[in-house]
């Protein structure tokens, strides 16, 4: 009965490619907030990509851009080989059937006037299922997320706990049988024990349904735990990207190093020497010239203010830092170039 979306591009085709996504919000009194400022990355099929960064770095805007819930000012989105919105590509409707999102605030992400079964069955109803079919599919999906449909189907959101609400949110996203699920701080608001349960649930669902996740969080430990690859964002740009184990073991960008240093560690062997990060990030309405991180970077030099370092591209471990670009003019770049050559 359930429709399965065909794998059009084959296993080698990335599930989602974001190319130079940009979103600037105009603000009163002129100027614009550069929420997302040229972000490019690719999500392979079946992987979990973690996106980390401080609050205000554009993570949630990026999540909404990926679903075209807000229109990007520039940049392209390619879903399974089909460009979103292009005449010969994939239209918004089919993108949204194949890519779904789980929101952070489980309280405001469920309609308080709608019973759980109707909330979960809304997607199938949109696709033209009858009321009974939609209810049956909603019950199926509720069972998948570990909620008894008999018990929870008729309930209203205010009768559920935070963990239960988030399960319903996950069920609603899954009701459309998506291939890609964007989890925007999906477990951040939960208690640690409930968070672990929901993370386990997400892992099981991924295995059972062959899902691809974009996992957005500010919690480094959780991202390290769930992600295959990691994207570190700073001020609307990608600071560092690469396989999760490499990024967490040998962070390249000073920002990533500071982030990792600032988290609590139980292992004295894993202390990082870098100075913990201080101060607030600069306002995205008025970002510093050149590299966005230079105002807080212990290694900042003149070249960092002149122009922005090239953002990481491709799947390999790389960071947007002049120190990693041979010939960039940064005093540490020669050193690194020599290391790489050796």
């Amino acid at each position: 009965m359930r429709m399965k979306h065909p794998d059009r591009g084959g296993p080698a085709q990335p599930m989602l490619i974001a190319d130079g996504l940009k979103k600037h919000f105009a603000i009163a009194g002129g100027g614009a907030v550069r929420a997302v400022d040229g972000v490019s990355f690719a999500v392979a099929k079946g992987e979990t990509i973690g996106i980390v960064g401080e609050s205000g770095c554009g993570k949630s805007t990026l999540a909404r851009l990926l679903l075209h819930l807000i229109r990007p000012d520039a940049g392209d989105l390619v879903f399974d080989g089909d460009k979103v919105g292009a005449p010969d590509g994939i239209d918004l409707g089919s993108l949204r059937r194949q890519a779904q999102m789980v929101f952070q605030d489980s309280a405001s992400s469920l309609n308080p006037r709608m019973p759980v079964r109707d909330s979960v069955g809304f997607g199938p109803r949109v696709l033209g299922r009858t009321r009974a079919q939609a209810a049956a599919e909603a019950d199926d999906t509720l069972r998948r997320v570990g909620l008894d449909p008999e018990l929870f189907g008729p309930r209203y959101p205010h009768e559920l706990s935070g963990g239960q609400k988030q399960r319903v949110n996950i069920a609603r996203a899954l009701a459309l049988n998506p291939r890609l699920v964007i989890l925007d701080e999906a477990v951040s608001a939960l208690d640690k024990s409930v968070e672990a349960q929901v993370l386990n649930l997400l892992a099981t669902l991924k295995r059972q349904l062959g899902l691809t996740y974009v996992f957005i969080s500010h919690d480094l430990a959780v991202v390290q735990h769930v992600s295959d690859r990691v994207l570190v964002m700073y001020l609307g740009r990608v600071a560092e990207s690469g396989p999760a184990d490499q990024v967490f073991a040998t962070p390249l960008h000073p920002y990533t190093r500071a982030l990792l240093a600032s988290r609590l560690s139980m292992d004295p062997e894993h202390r990082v020497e870098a100075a913990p990060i201080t101060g607030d990030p600069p306002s995205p309405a008025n970002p510093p010239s050149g590299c966005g991180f230079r105002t807080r970077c212990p290694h900042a030099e003149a070249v960092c203010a002149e122009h922005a370092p090239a953002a990481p591209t491709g799947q390999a471990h790389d960071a947007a830092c002049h120190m990693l670009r041979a010939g960039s003019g940064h005093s540490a770049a020669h050193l690194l170039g020599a290391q790489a050559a050796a």
Partner: protein
Amino acid sequence: MSQALHLPAMAAPRPAPTPGYWSMVGRRLRRDPVTVIFCLLMLAIVLSAVCAPLISPFDPYKESVILRLKPFGFRGHWLGTDELGRDILARILYGGQTTLLMGICPVIAACLVGGSLGVLAGYAGGWVGTLIMRTMDVFYAFPSVLLAVAISGAMGGGMLNGMLALALVFVPAMCRVAETATTQVRNLDYVEAARATGAGHLMIVRHHLLGNVMAPVLVYASSLVSVSILLGSGLSFLGLGVRPPIPEWGLMLSTLRQSLYVQPWVCAVPGFAIFITSICFNLVSDGLRSAMDVRLK
């Protein structure tokens, strides 16, 4: 954390099935004694107006030269007689029909027009919303009584014109309430989630917006009924609404005013009727407001 898992069923067995929204509202209303009492009183007022031909002891139009301005209980006229010798009780009962119509019809009309405009303004936003809301602001510049008098004065008296004038006066307020509620709901994640399913605007408005906008609009509308009764009576009092000899509470008050020193209690009866009815609608509206709040348990 990463080991294989079995999911504990998150079920705390609770045998009673969750009731629907409206039965929940009903249950809460029933537990609120003040609202229940005034609901019953309101029902009694509406019923007595509707059943006026059956229960009225006299013909409300029957005049009598010898029975003018008699006190309470005079020869079977329980509430006395007016300046033309007509039975006050009969005129109150029949007058209830016109007065309640003047109270309810304009509000329903304003609810439909203002509510839809408000939802449209709130949901569409942008220049559509600005256009609608700024137009409504123009109406806000005038005091509502003055506006009602001006409109019905311009259109000429009569019951229908009076109701139209009242409806026009209520549209901006209704529109603003609906717009505010819509704007609040529109930016919530569940509306975004609905958009993410690929749902069209109509479907989102119908399933996710209307239900959440309806509660504040309904509560506000029920409180407007008493305002509408008062304003309608005011219009009739000024000779702009209902024309004599049709019984209407405001009009009765206006014509009995001259006899205030002859039969003060008899002259106060229509005012008392207006007072009781508007109190009823206000208190029931208050009860509705708290009963319809989903967050309260």
